[in-house]
C-alpha cells in the first residue's frame, strides 16, 4: 500500500463525479418510496446511497487537502489516459458496434488485426499470422467446443462448416 501526498491527475474530478452521482442516486432512491417505512422498497437503496454520499464526501474532502499534482492536462494524458489506452478503447467500441452486423468472425478478425498491429508495431505479415491463429483458436474453443452462440453476420460460417463436414463425411 502506498501513501500519496499529492493527488493523481484528475483525481479530484473523479471523486467529485462520484459524489455527484451518489447525491443523484440518493435523490432517486428517495423517489422510490420516500420515508414511508423501514421495510419499504426504497429503504435499503436509500441507506446504501446515503453511505455512498458520506464516504464519497470524505474521499473528496481528503483529496482536496492533498497537494496538486501539477502538470495540468499533459500529466493527465500521460498518467491517466495514455494514447494506448485511448486508442484501444476506441478499437473496443468499434468492435462492439460492428460485432452484430459484421458477425463474430469478421469483426473479431479486424479487431485483432488492428489492435495487435497497433500494440506490437510489428511487421504486417506477423500480425496477420497472429490474428488468424488467435481467431481460429478462439473459434474452435468457444464456438465448436463450448458451443457458444456467436453472431454470424455476413460470413456464412454455418454453410462453410456444413460444407467441410460434407466433404469429410463424403470422402469416407
Amino acid at each position, binding site marked *: *500500500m502506498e501513501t*500519496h501526498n499529492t493527488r*493523481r491527475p*484528475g*483525481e479530484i474530478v*473523479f*471523486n467529485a463525479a*462520484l459524489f455527484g452521482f451518489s447525491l443523484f*442516486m440518493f435523490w*432517486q*432512491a428517495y423517489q*422510490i*418510496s420516500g420515508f414511508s*417505512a*423501514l*421495510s419499504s*422498497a*426504497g*429503504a*435499503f*437503496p436509500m441507506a*446504501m*446511497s446515503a*453511505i*455512498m454520499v458520506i*464516504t*464519497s464526501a*470524505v*474521499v473528496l474532502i*481528503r483529496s482536496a487537502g492533498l497537494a496538486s499534482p501539477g502538470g495540468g492536462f499533459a500529466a493527465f494524458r500521460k498518467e*491517466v489516459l*495514455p494514447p*494506448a*489506452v485511448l486508442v*484501444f*478503447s476506441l478499437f*473496443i*467500441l468499434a*468492435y*462492439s458496434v460492428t*460485432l*452484430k452486423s459484421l458477425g*463474430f468472425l469478421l469483426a*473479431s478478425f479486424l*479487431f*485483432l488485426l488492428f*489492435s*495487435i498491429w497497433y*500494440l*506490437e508495431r*510489428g511487421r504486417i505479415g506477423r500480425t496477420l499470422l497472429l490474428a488468424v491463429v*488467435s481467431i481460429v483458436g*478462439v473459434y474452435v474453443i*468457444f464456438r465448436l467446443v*463450448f*458451443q*457458444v*452462440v*456467436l*453472431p454470424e453476420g455476413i460470413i456464412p460460417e454455418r454453410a462453410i462448416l456444413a460444407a467441410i463436414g460434407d466433404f469429410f463425411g463424403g470422402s469416407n
Partner: protein
Amino acid sequence: MMDALSYLFASWLQPELLALTAVGTFAGIYIGAIPGLSVTMAVSILISFTFGWEVNHALALMNGIFMGGVYGGSRTAILLNIPGAPAAIATALDGYPMAKKGEAGNAIGLSTVMSFFGGFVGIIVLAVAAPVVSEFAILFQPRDYMLLAVMGILLVGSLSGESLAKGVFAGALGMLLGTVGLDPMTAEQRFTFGSVDMMNGISPVALMIGLFGVSEALLQLHNLHLAAVKQKVDKIVPSFSDLKKYLPLSLQTSTIGVIIGALPGTGGDIAALMAYDHAKRVTKDPEVPFGQGAKEGLVGPESANNAAVGGAYIPMLTLGIPGDAVTAVIIGALFIHGLNPGPLLLVEKPDMFWFTVGNLTLANIFMLIFGLTGIKIFTKIIECPKGVLFPLILLLSVVGAYSINNSLSDVWWMLGFGVLGYFMKLYGYQVGPVVLGIILSRLMDDNWRRAIISEQENLPAFFYGMITSPLSAVLFFTILLILLSQTPVWKAIKMHAHPRLGRG
C-alpha cells in the same frame, strides 16, 4: 454414506469431468502466473461461456482454475519478482532472492509441494466444517445474515484498499447496483428510469467481466513492455529433509489460511501476508535471514494461500456469502445454474457439496503434478507477447458479455463498468467490494426487511435484539471492531504496542 462417496469421486471417474478439471488446473496455473491475467478475470469471462453446461462441468473447470491460479502466481513471483496474483505478493519477498541465488528450481518445487499441503488442509477443513456450519446456520436469523454480509463487505473494503472510505463506497455502490430493477418483494421499480431493459436489473456477470476483465486489461496497457528476466531453473523436486523440516510450519500457516479464507470477504492474499508474518515470528533463527531467501518465508504464504481456497468455500456453500472475490464470482455462476447456496444447500443438494470437495481434491493433485513438471515450457509461455494477450482478453470480454443474453445491451453495461473500474483502480478504489456488493445485495435487502418487519418496524427493538442475541452481538461487535481498527487512534495504539507489526 455410500452416496456421499460416489459424489465425492464423481469427477475422478468420469473422463469428461476429469479432463475439465485437468484443463482448468493447467490453465489456472498459467492464468495465475501471467501478470495481468487473474483468476477472477478468467472465471468471470468463463461464466458466460458455460451457461449451457451442466453445473458439475462448469464447477470442475472453475475449481481447477481457482486452485491452479492461486498457486500459479507464485511462479512469476519467484522467477520475475512480479506476483502473478495478489495471493503471491508475500511469496516474492523470499522467493525472488532465492531465484537470484540460482535456487529458482528449489523454490518452485518447495512452493508447489507446500501449496499442495495447504490446499489439502483447506479441503479437509471444508469437508469437516461445512456440514457443522450449515447445521449451525439454520439457527441464523435474518438479522445475522445481514450482519454477516456487512462484515464481508467491510473486510474486503478495509483490508485491501487505500482507505476505508473508498472500500465502503465501493461496497455500497455494488449493493445499490444490485437493487436496480423490479423489487422482488413489492414489484416496485427501482432505478429503472422507465426503461424496460432495466427492469431485469444489471447483470452481475456483465459487471464482473467489466470490472475484472476490461478494466484490468486497459490498466495493463500502461506497462506493456516489461523486460523478462531469465532465471536458471533446475532440480524442481524438493528434498525429503526439507519437506520434513517445514511441514510443522506449513500446517500452522495452513490453519491461518483456512480461517482467513473462511472469513467472509478475506481471501488468499491476506492469508498469505498474515502467514508470512507468522512464519517470521515463529522462526527463531532462520538459516537465511527473511527477505534474503528464507525458505520459511516461502513455505508460510504458499501453504496459507492454497489453504484459503478450501476455507473460502465454507461460507459460500453454507451461508451463501462468498469468502473472497473469486468465490463471489463462482456464487454468481451457481445462481445462474439455478442453485441457491445457503444453509439448505447441503441438505437439498448434498451431491453438489461432495462433488465440490472431491473435485477440489482432484484439482489439488493435478496442481502438484503440473507444478512439478513442464517448467521449461512455462518459462516460454509467460514470455508470450502482451500485444496479443490483451486484445484477446478484450475480445473474450465482449463476446462473453454478448453471450449472456445474446444482446448488445450487456456489452454496453460491461464496457461501462470496464471504464468505471479503470478509473476506480487508478484512483485507489477497490473493485472487489463492488462485485461482492452486487452479489450480496439481494441477501442484505431481503434479510434487512424480514428482520425489521419481525420487529414491527421498531428500530430500537431491532438494535436491542441485535445486542441481546449472542450470535448477533458477536457479529455486531466484530463489525464495530473492524471499523474501529481503521481509525487513526487504534493504529497509533497498535503501533505503540507492537512496533514490528506496522508494515507499510
